[in-house]
Structure formats: C-alpha cells, structure tokens
C-alpha cells in the first residue's frame, strides 16, 4: 500500500461503494449512501427477527409466550381491534362503533407521539431557559440549583401519583410525566454545556465590547446549541419510555394503555406488536430530530468519519 493521500470525497464513497456494489457510479453519491444505510438497518432488524424465528422453528421458544414476528405481525386486523379509541368499554357504546381498526391504530400512535413531542418541547424550552438563567444570574443559581440537583435523581415513576393528583386523567398527566422526567437532567446538561464553551470565544466578544447579554445571546447560546441537540436526542428515547408508563395508568388511549390491556388479558402477541410499533416510532422520531439537527447546525462537521478510519 502506498501512502498516497486520497481526496476526502473519494475515501467517503469508498466505504459505501463496497456495500452497494450493485449501484453504478452514475447515480449521485447520496443515493448510494442512503441505500446502504437503509439496507443495513433492514439487515440488522432482519438478523434479529431471523434468530427469533429460528428459535421458534427449532421449538426452543414457546409460541404462546414469545410469539415470533411472523405471528404477531401477520394478524393486523385482530391486533388493531385492541387499539380502542372509541372508548368501547363504556356502557352503551357498541363494540363495532368508532373508527376502523387501522384508523384506531393511527389515532393511538398519534396520541402517544403528540404527548412525547409536547413534553419534549415544554421540557427543553423550560430547562434551557432555566439553565441559562442559572449561569446568567448568580441569585438564580443559588436559589434554584440546589433544589434541581436534589430532585434530578428522583425516578419519574415517583412522580406518577403527583401527576394524577395534579392533573387527573387525560393528556396532561402524561405530558407532565415527560416534562418532569427530562427537565432536571436537561437543566444540568445545559449548565455543563455553558461551562464548556471555549473561553477564547467569550474573551473575543468581551474585548470587542460585548455586554453580558450580548455575550450570552451572540456567543454562548449558539455555541451550546450542538451539545443541547445531542442531549435532546438522548432524552427523546427517555420521553418515549416515560410516556408509556404514564399512559398505562389510564389516559383514555395510547400505546401504554394497549400494553397494559395486553398484560391484563395475557396477550403476548399484542405486547410484541406494540413494542414493534414503539421501536419504529422511536427510530423515526430520532431520524426526524437528526434532520433538524443537520438543518440548524450547518457549521458542525460530521465526526464519525474519523472513527470509521480506525
């Protein structure tokens, strides 16, 4: 091997070119990259499912307890029946009233997703504001930070009764649970991001006569955005976890409520079907947030390339 330095672009396409040998260079490079990413995602999930199916085919796992994917995914109408959005359990509501099964699944999914994003939005707005205020005003730090640090190790589960006391039943307690699960950590993360801002950038602004407010708004806030979006992405999964717990206590409808129903009626197929839905949703929302990240943070370079080169 000679040590001729390759142009960066050539090296980048080199990796994907191997993976998608079928694609000719006539296609734009991003098509190859996207195809390879989708391909590997499917392969990763496929391998996992294949292993599961194999265990089932060999008779090692019991289909009644751990139904393999082809079982719990095949009977969609049967599963969808349980996504009960018309409150059919109430007296006087017919079993066949309400939206179609597919419609009910969509409504359930959207309801849970809306709670996750409402919670995420409220939690990030609140925690970034308060995190910045804590560093901006010493008085706020002294008065608020001890309490925030004290409350941050409390498990979201402990807040569940509080959510019900305060908000009863419905969307509000679920959103509250998401907010409370993320808020404290995100405040602490915001503070640590502020502390890590390159001192030189702050000093440059100061020597140019920037006021404290200008230093925060023009330098510190843009400088912490990349880190904050990473924090937000990590907390997105946390939000999906918490919303399920909150919904399982009764919010009308939602994925958590379906899981609870499956548990009470001993329906493993429904459990796995719902888990599959949640996985896909979490994956999709992470992808959406990554797209937002790319759009907002145009100046942050892609860093994974270095690790690939190892």
């Amino acid at each position, binding site marked *: 091997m000679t040590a001729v330095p390759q142009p960066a672009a050539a090296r980048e396409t080199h990796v994907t070119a191997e993976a998608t040998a079928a694609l000719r260079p006539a296609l734009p490079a991003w098509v190859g990259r996207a195809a390879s990413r989708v391909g590997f995602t499917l392969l990763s999930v496929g391998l996992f499912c294949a292993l599961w199916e194999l265990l089932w085919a060999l008779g090692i796992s019991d289909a009644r307890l751990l139904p393999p994917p082809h079982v719990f995914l095949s009977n969609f109408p049967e599963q969808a029946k349980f996504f009960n959005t018309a409150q059919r359990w109430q007296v006087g509501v017919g079993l066949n009233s309400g939206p179609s099964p597919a419609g009910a699944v969509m409504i359930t999914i959207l309801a849970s997703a809306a709670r996750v994003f409402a919670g995420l939005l409220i939690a990030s707005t609140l925690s970034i504001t308060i995190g910045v205020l804590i560093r901006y005003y010493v008085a706020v730090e002294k008065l608020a930070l001890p309490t925030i640090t004290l409350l941050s190790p409390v498990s979201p589960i402990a807040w569940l009764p509080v959510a019900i006391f305060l908000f009863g039943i419905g969307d509000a307690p679920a959103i509250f649970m998401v907010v409370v699960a993320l808020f404290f950590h995100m405040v602490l993360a915001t503070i640590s991001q502020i502390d890590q801002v390159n001192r030189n950038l702050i000093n440059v602004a*100061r020597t140019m006569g920037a006021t404290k407010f200008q230093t925060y708004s023009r330098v510190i806030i843009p400088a912490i955005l990349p880190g904050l979006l990473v924090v937000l992405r990590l907390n997105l999964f946390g939000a999906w976890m918490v919303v399920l717990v909150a919904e399982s206590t009764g919010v009308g409808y939602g994925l958590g409520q379906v899981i609870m129903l499956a548990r009470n009626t001993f329906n493993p197929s429904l459990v796995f079907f719902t888990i599959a839905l949640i996985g896909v949703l979490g994956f999709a929302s992470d992808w959406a947030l990554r797209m937002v990240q790319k759009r907002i943070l145009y100046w942050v370079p892609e860093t994974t390339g270095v690790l690939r080169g190892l």
Partner: protein
Amino acid sequence: MCRNVSKVWAAGTDRAHAALHGIDLDIAPGEFTVLIGPSGCGKSTLLYLVAGLEPETDGEIWSFGDRVVAPSPDRSLIFQETSLFPWLTVWQNVSFGLSIRGTPAAERKAVAREALHRVGLTEAIDKRPDELSGGMRQRVAVARALAMRPKVLLMDEPFAALDVQTRTKMQDFLLDVWRDSSASILFVTHHIEEAIALADRVVVFTSRPGRVKTIVPIDMPRPRDPFSARSEALRKQLTDILRDEVDRAFAEQEALAV
C-alpha cells in the same frame, strides 16, 4: 504603561501562586514589543491583564492615559488557537465587533471587505471558518482585530500552531499590517527567531513568578535577514539569557517534585 504590576492566581487559597511580580514596562505608541520567556512565566497572563480580561492583583496598567479596568475595543487580543465563531461567515466574524455596536449590515460588510483586503483574503468573504486553513483563519482573526481600529494589538503566540513556512509568511504579513495600521503590538512567543524577525524590542521574562529580566533592542532595519551576522549574534545572546531561565525553571520544578 505597566507600573509595578503583579498577578497572583487563586489568591487567598492554598493553591495561590504568583504569576507576575513587579512588572514595569513602557511601550511607545506604534512600537512592536515581543515578550519572550520560559513556558509558564506569565507572559500570556500579562496580555490578559493588559486586555482587561483579568484584574491585576497589585500595581496599575495604563493605556493612552486611561487606567485599564475592563476590556476595550482599543486593545484587541488574538489567541494562539482559532477563536473564530464557527457559525458565522468570515465577513460576519470580522465585523462581529461592529454588530455588537448595532452598525447596519451594509456598512459592516464594507468594513469587513476593507479589513479582509488588508490581510489578502477578500475572496474568502462569504466562506465559513471550517473551510479555511489554519493560516487563513489566523489572518481572519487579525482582520477582525483590525476592523475595530485598535490602538494596541495583543497577540498570544498567534502563529504557534502553524507550520514553519506559513509562520514565516505570516510574520511578513503581520509586519506589513503593522506598518499600515500605526497600532502598538505586544506579541508573546517562545520562538527566539520569531522575536528577532518582528520586534523593535524583545522583553525577556524570568521564570515564575515572571519579572522583566532584560530588554534587548533589535537594532536592525527591516526587512531583516535571519542569517546575517547581527541576527546570529542576537540569537546567541537571547538563547544564552533564556537558557539560564529555563534551567532555573527546571531546577525549581524538580525541587517541588521532591
């Protein structure tokens, strides 16, 4: 300019250590002064104090008749590492100080173009910092400092991260900029060759706590030949002075380690 200036870091705690002690230093307007000394001798600290970013523990710093108490656009500081804002374009970086004052965008861009012209980077005006090489970024940083029309340019080893060829180029470039701008320059380096190439006067610091050991005037006309007999003699003189200090600094560190 500096009267009996001292700086103690972490004063009043058990980690207190003196960085500077009793510095007396006068810099004439338009003069190019280079500070040189063993690493950790407090030469960068002095720049921070002159910039007004850190308060002095003792003594006074004066700049053009005013006591230095806070940072001012009159005294621009240029750092060793890139300190450009990565989310702004080159011209927005250069005119950052003006945007702080609320200058309209059209005027800012004009000033930025003029400053970039002086550092020879007009074509990079709409680029972002990560598209530039290290030397170009430092030139943008210099343009940003010049756009504020400072009376004093403070430079903290600005070319230390550059390769030797770029560094020599940047020194020539800096001398051109300095001639045009009439600003005083206070320049920190640990490179003796760099000090001889640039300075009107070289101020040699002792090891910690930093004191002014000697001041060596560089009595050579510019452009200077780094291989002339006079350059060689100065290099030898400064190397000898510095070696004493470096030896002392090492001895102290060893004594501390025991």
